[in-house]
């Protein structure tokens, strides 16, 4: 049975570990799970209290021909102006001793060299995702370059993210070269202590001085915040919907909405449009923009006309759901904005589509 632990209550500001006065292993039952599967909340390692929030496995540089890397998430810690994530990773005793830590925790071109950027936080409830801080030519993480992983050791790193908004209690962590998932990590407060001077200590030696000598004002946190886009489609795949916290974009298969070359909605179209119509009635505000697209079959001019007529037909079908707070707008783009090269029937079918895009009101 997989092991899991329930989310932990956040500790007060300051050191999460300083708040725990007794160095013991705290056992918590799994939430909603019958039977066993308990996981220690905090482990005593050489007298240091080590939170264990979750675990992952991966391969150095995503190369399965190399030794397995195993790692832990020790904390997602909220501090003033940032969120600090502590992770560890290591190779089993007897593994290759020439594996660099940057094969697990590395940076991309968008980040300064000698930083860690391949960690992501996902806030499902708030519809946001967070990437490591960047900006100002500064490094907002441990500096892993040049460190070889010692087999049989767990090396600790930290990575700073934008400060999570109040109310964000649980996040998922994606980490390492294959974006290994550790889900349901409770956000706690304060840096992990006791501190040690090592840039990248081993688990149990203490915690690195995260954010020490880091000028947070150099960070541009807005560059590290992303909208989480949900994707779903109807089981018949007639409609595909991409939704952010602010906007819904529905794409309909024009082959179902219309007969070939026609701008008259088929009987099936009404059913296909009903769900979006109801959603518009419930949540939309402002302009509801309906755009028709065609493939490249036929003349450009005729495709432009057909796409406009199809958009207008969809607008007419959605009109009964549109209240006074929205305005329906029809646009034809003809063959000018393909989503695929018009070089196969499958791709041309994908290009024959109608999109409906609208803003949604917060909390509705």
């Amino acid at each position, binding site marked *: 049975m997989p092991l899991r*632990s329930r989310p932990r209550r956040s500790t007060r500001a300051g050191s999460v570990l300083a708040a725990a006065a007794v160095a013991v292993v705290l*056992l918590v039952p799994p939430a*909603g*799970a019958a039977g066993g599967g308990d*996981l220690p909340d905090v482990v005593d390692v050489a007298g240091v209290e080590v939170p264990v929030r979750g675990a992952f496995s991966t391969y150095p540089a995503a190369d*399965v021909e190399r030794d397995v890397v195993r790692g832990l998430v020790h904390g997602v810690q909220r501090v003033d102006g940032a969120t600090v994530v502590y992770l560890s990773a290591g190779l089993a005793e007897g593994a290759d001793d020439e594996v660099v830590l940057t094969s697990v925790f590395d940076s991309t071109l968008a980040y300064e060299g000698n930083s860690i950027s391949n960690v992501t936080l*996902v806030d499902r409830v708030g519809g946001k995702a967070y990437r490591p801080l960047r900006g100002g030519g500064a490094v907002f993480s441990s500096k892993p370059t040049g460190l070889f992983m010692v087999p049989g050791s767990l090396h600790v790193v930290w990575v700073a993210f934008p400060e999570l908004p109040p109310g964000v209690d649980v996040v998922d962590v994606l980490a390492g070269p294959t974006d290994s*998932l550790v*889900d349901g990590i409770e956000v706690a407060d304060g840096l992990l202590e006791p501190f040690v001077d090592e840039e990248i200590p081993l688990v149990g030696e203490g915690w690195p001085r995260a954010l020490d000598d880091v000028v947070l004002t150099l960070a541009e946190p807005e560059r590290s915040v992303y909208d989480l886009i949900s994707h779903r489609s109807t089981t018949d795949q007639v409609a595909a919907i991409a939704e952010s916290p602010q906007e819904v974009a529905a794409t309909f298969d024009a082959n179902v909405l219309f007969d070939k070359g026609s701008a008259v909605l088929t009987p099936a179209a009404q059913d296909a449009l009903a769900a979006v119509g109801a959603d518009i009635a419930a949540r939309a505000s402002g302009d509801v923009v309906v755009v028709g697209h065609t493939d490249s079959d036929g003349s450009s001019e005729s495709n432009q006309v057909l796409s406009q007529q199809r958009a207008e037909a969809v607008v007419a079908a959605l009109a009964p759901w549109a209240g006074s707070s929205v305005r329906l707008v029809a646009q034809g783009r003809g063959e000018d904005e393909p989503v695929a090269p018009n070089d196969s029937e499958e791709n041309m079918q994908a290009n024959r589509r109608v999109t409906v895009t609208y803003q949604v009101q917060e909390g509705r």
Partner: protein
Amino acid sequence: MRAARVAGVLLAVGVLVAGCTSDPGPGPEPTGGSTTASGSTGYTVEEFAAEVLGDGAPDELDVVGQVSGTLPDGEPVQVGVVAVRADASGTTLELTVRGDFALGSMRGWSSGPLRSYDDIRGVEVVDESAGGWRLQPYTLRQDDEPENHCACAMFPRTLQEDRPVTLSAVLPPLPAGVTTVTVAVPGLDPVTSVPVTWE
């Protein structure tokens, strides 16, 4: 609130609580640690690392459904569904993949019409009930930039038959009460009647 969860990699740590559970899960026997007066276990730096890192063998996770097939280029592949976990905030899909091929063979799992990605954003969890949806992994968007990041696993550069990899994804919520779903992997037969674990 969703439960924090530890994937198979930490099964080794299960031994830390072996005395307190009816099912501690697989993993090596404890190699060390001392018992405190409270019955808790303390570890040295080396002992704890050994417990977590184990013997270095790849994860062999139990599956609740599986499918074998071939990728578009003819490479055989086996996909196991380890779990579909759901709560009100979202759905977690955990797969284990076994095969012997390179990254390029798997791009059909994530390709859009115009470009493909090196991740598994093409996998779906399908609610087959009336009015149900096909759910795909979340992507990350910033302004009008391409959605290069996904709340899902990246492919490894290669796969080897004897080294299965675990690939996970975060998807939108399922409707409350859904007990089984279909897991669809592009190019393979769907895995039907996969049980949903609600948390």
